[in-house]
């Protein structure tokens, strides 16, 4: 009886995934395979369409050893990511926990913090950046009247911060706009997860005399750990695949020059790097995630 149910369940699980399997074959695996073939070929345009000639690793060799910018751009982008992901995670969790508290005006602030989710988009970002009036604000430039950070490093020095620490801190001060705008989706997901933590758990903890700090680490943190994994992956993917990422810009530039095979080579190598990072993160975090079932 039980085995029968098990067999039924496993069939049902597969059935649930069937639309996705058809979709992934048609709209991902097939184009992706074609793109891999491009990466190993030279494309020529003929009246019948695109013609591919196999050339082995030529595109990859050119990217790695001839192209002066490609490897450097990837290394820089990974380095930025290592700093950015923890900061964004902490910031968004912090904001979500605050927005989850009951205080006057929280609905207003929630609305404000979700605004970037609605409008973050390549074209608008490009327009704001191309506009020399607003680009200074976006970059946190000292010249802009609103977010002058030029004196802050001197101020911190005079308080007694070490120059090394300031060198780490100042870029964050400059990119506060960028951070605030990127944290919309993680905040949203953290908030949704926070709302699903049963209130009864906190009540019990309070009766047992747990402090707020203990409640956070013993109840809140494990309960929302599935969303921490989710958000880490989201932040990584968002950072690596957004159209303002320098590597993506490089790839788009090559596509624009009609060098499809080279662009394909660039993006597949990039994918291997990103994939390795995401796999590491998945393996490392998933071990510590607490799921209610299984």
């Amino acid at each position, binding site marked *: 009886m039980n085995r029968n149910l098990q067999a*039924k*369940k*496993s069939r*049902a*699980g597969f059935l649930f*995934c069937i*639309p*996705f399997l058809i*979709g*992934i074959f*048609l*709209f*991902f695996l*097939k*184009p*992706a395979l*074609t793109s891999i073939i491009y990466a190993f070929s030279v494309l020529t345009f003929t009246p019948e369409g*695109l013609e591919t000639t196999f050339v082995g690793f030529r595109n990859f060799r050119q990217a790695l050893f001839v192209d002066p910018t490609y490897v450097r751009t990837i290394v820089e982008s990974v380095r930025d990511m290592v700093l950015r992901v923890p900061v964004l995670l902490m910031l968004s969790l912090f*904001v979500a926990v605050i927005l989850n508290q009951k205080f006057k005006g929280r*609905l207003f602030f929630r609305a*404000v*913090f979700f*605004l970037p*989710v*609605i*409008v*973050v*988009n*390549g*074209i608008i970002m490009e327009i704001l950046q*191309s*506009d020399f*009036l*607003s680009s200074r*604000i976006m970059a946190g430039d000292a010249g802009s009247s*609103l977010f002058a950070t030029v004196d802050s490093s001197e101020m911190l020095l005079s308080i007694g911060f070490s120059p090394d620490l300031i060198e780490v801190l100042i870029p964050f001060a400059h990119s506060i*706009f960028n951070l*605030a705008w990127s944290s919309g989706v993680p905040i*949203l*997901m953290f908030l*949704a997860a926070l*709302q*699903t*933590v049963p*209130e009864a758990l906190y009540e019990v903890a309070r009766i047992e005399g747990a402090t707020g700090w203990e409640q956070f680490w013993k109840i809140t943190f494990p309960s929302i750990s*599935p969303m921490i994994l989710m958000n880490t*992956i*989201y932040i990584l993917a968002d950072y690596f*695949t957004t*159209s303002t990422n320098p590597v*993506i810009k490089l*790839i*788009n530039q090559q*596509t624009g020059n009609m060098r*499809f095979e080279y662009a394909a080579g660039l993006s597949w190598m*990039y*994918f291997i790097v*990103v994939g390795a990072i995401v796999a590491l993160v998945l393996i490392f975090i998933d071990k510590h995630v607490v*799921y*209610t079932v299984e």
Partner: protein
Amino acid sequence: MKSKKVVLNFVKTLFRFMFLAGLSVIIVYPFFYSLSVALRDVQDLYDPLVILVPRHFTLDNIRNVMERMDYGRSLLGSFFRDGVSCLLQIASCSLTGYGLARFNFKGKKIISALMFAIIIVPPQTYVIPNYIEFRYFNPFGFSSLVSLISGNDININLIDSNLAFFLPAVLGLGIRSGIIIFMFRQFFRGMPKELEEAAYIDGLSFFRTYYRIMLPNSKASLVTSFLLSFVWYWNDYVYTSSLMPRAKTVMNQLSILFNNISYIMQYEQNSNPYEGILLLQSGVLLSIIPVLILYLVFQRQFTQSIERSGIVG
């Protein structure tokens, strides 16, 4: 003792307010900037005294851009295409997410791996093959088979058709669908298992359990993913520019406007860069406003649905 607590509470409230207000200013500033620039006359851009509040209000920029973007029709086009795609995507992604969250079956690991693959492979990687896929649409050799049987050359071209958006969406491969499937998987995994077990004992089938029990109990995730999905469709650039380059959608019209104005500013001798800024910021404003209004209208339901779901569990 008690007064200490009052002071502590006050300090806490003050810090919370300062922190939130500070970040809010940063977030909101560009909106006010766009609004302020869009409503100005050109002469205000030369005036160093004008920072945010314009001296010469005008609606000319907005009117001009509305005409250039064919705003009314673009708006309708956007809402139709993105609304339908988004609903289809939610349906298919929640189904897959539920399957991955609650069942064990052969090949589940492979499906999960594929889900992560579509999250991290940038769509730019396969834009060109994807274009070809839709230009000569031939799913599993179906079109070739039909043309073989009927003897006519059948060539299905889905470029610039809404189907190029609807078909991937209904098959769980819409814009950023990997993230949405992952989100559903994580949400369903976090839900108590007793809900389903009760349903099975009552004799509900697997699909009905999902449809009648799990979905209504995950309103928060549904509303969240609906909002995200709609906005991602609305803001899409990569897929629209390759699959529907002539689409009458707000974002596409905005990007066309941006390209035109950049071109004019670069190549025309006596063009005024300030006028370009006015038009572009008006365009930005016009393309943000519909989603903004939608959000403000649904905002209450949105936050409430998140709250309400907290009761379950």
